């Protein structure tokens, strides 16, 4: 059965997200931690003068892409879990898209499982950052 991707919003969203994740990996590979030429700067640090929990994330990603895991942990200890989130999402976009095309009868369940699963992975990966936002309102 021939599928027109234009009529399948789920597939369009999957392709787009996969592209965005690939761009993130390309960014991490292109900019080097030695040259320190990252265009994205921490606005939080610029405003407050204090480093935030996500500072050093670009360095960490670049080092993970280059296989220097120990150094990546030194730059940002949450870098690995965020990187794994993006990596898992890239794999999930491909896998879910294949399942979506192969099993048309289970599409609704597949989308539901994807939404819930991705949401859980997101909260687990980004929990330190979410906790930081919550803690900001506490004191």
């Amino acid at each position: 059965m021939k599928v027109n991707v234009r009529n399948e919003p789920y597939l369009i969203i999957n392709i787009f997200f996969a592209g965005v994740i690939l761009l993130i990996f390309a960014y991490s590979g292109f900019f080097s931690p030695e040259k320190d030429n990252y265009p994205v700067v921490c606005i939080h640090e610029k405003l407050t003068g204090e480093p935030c929990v996500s500072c050093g994330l670009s360095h960490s990603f670049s080092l993970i892409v280059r296989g220097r895991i120990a150094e990546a942990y030194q730059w940002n200890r949450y870098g690995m879990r965020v990187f794994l989130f993006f990596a898992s999402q890239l794999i999930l976009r491909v896998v879910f898209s294949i399942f979506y095309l192969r099993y048309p009868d289970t599409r609704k369940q597949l989308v539901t499982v994807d939404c819930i699963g991705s949401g859980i992975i997101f909260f687990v990966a980004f929990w330190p950052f979410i906790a930081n936002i919550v803690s900001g309102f506490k004191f």
Partner: protein
Amino acid sequence: MEEVKNNTGQNLGIAALITAVITFVLAVIPCVGLIAIIPGIIAIVIATVGLSQSRRNNSPHGVLLAGLIIAIIASMISFSQIFVAGKIAQKANKWPNNIGNIINDVQDNVTKEIEDANVSIKVESNGNKVEINTNADKKDKEKTLEDLEGVATQKRDTIQKHDSIQKHVIVRKKK
């Protein structure tokens, strides 16, 4: 009569949902959380336009609604980053809420700048003009003072020399 399903707003719904999800991920990261409000507003606008179109044409609006809800939550998180940043900085005493501290900092900087400046004073009275040009280099002055103090503690004849220097200075001033 068969109900005609219209897909008006479907593309807008996809665009809104993608923008909203990206905004959500950005909003949670403190480094770029503040700027996530821009795509957040864009996503809200796209979703609202799409919703109004789909309601008019009676087309499905599930994706649009999802996009709108995620965009609103993401924008709220992004906006909350301002307060979080403010409170964290306040805790570290670095948020510039005390204008007095800023003025003191500026004052200190200006004083530091003046320490190394060249000063020229002109006095004019009853046709007489006196012009004093001096280098306010603090380090030079301190060195001169140290030299003078060192000299003063040595011998009596050097003090006389010092007196003669002072006299010379007075004479030059009078001229």
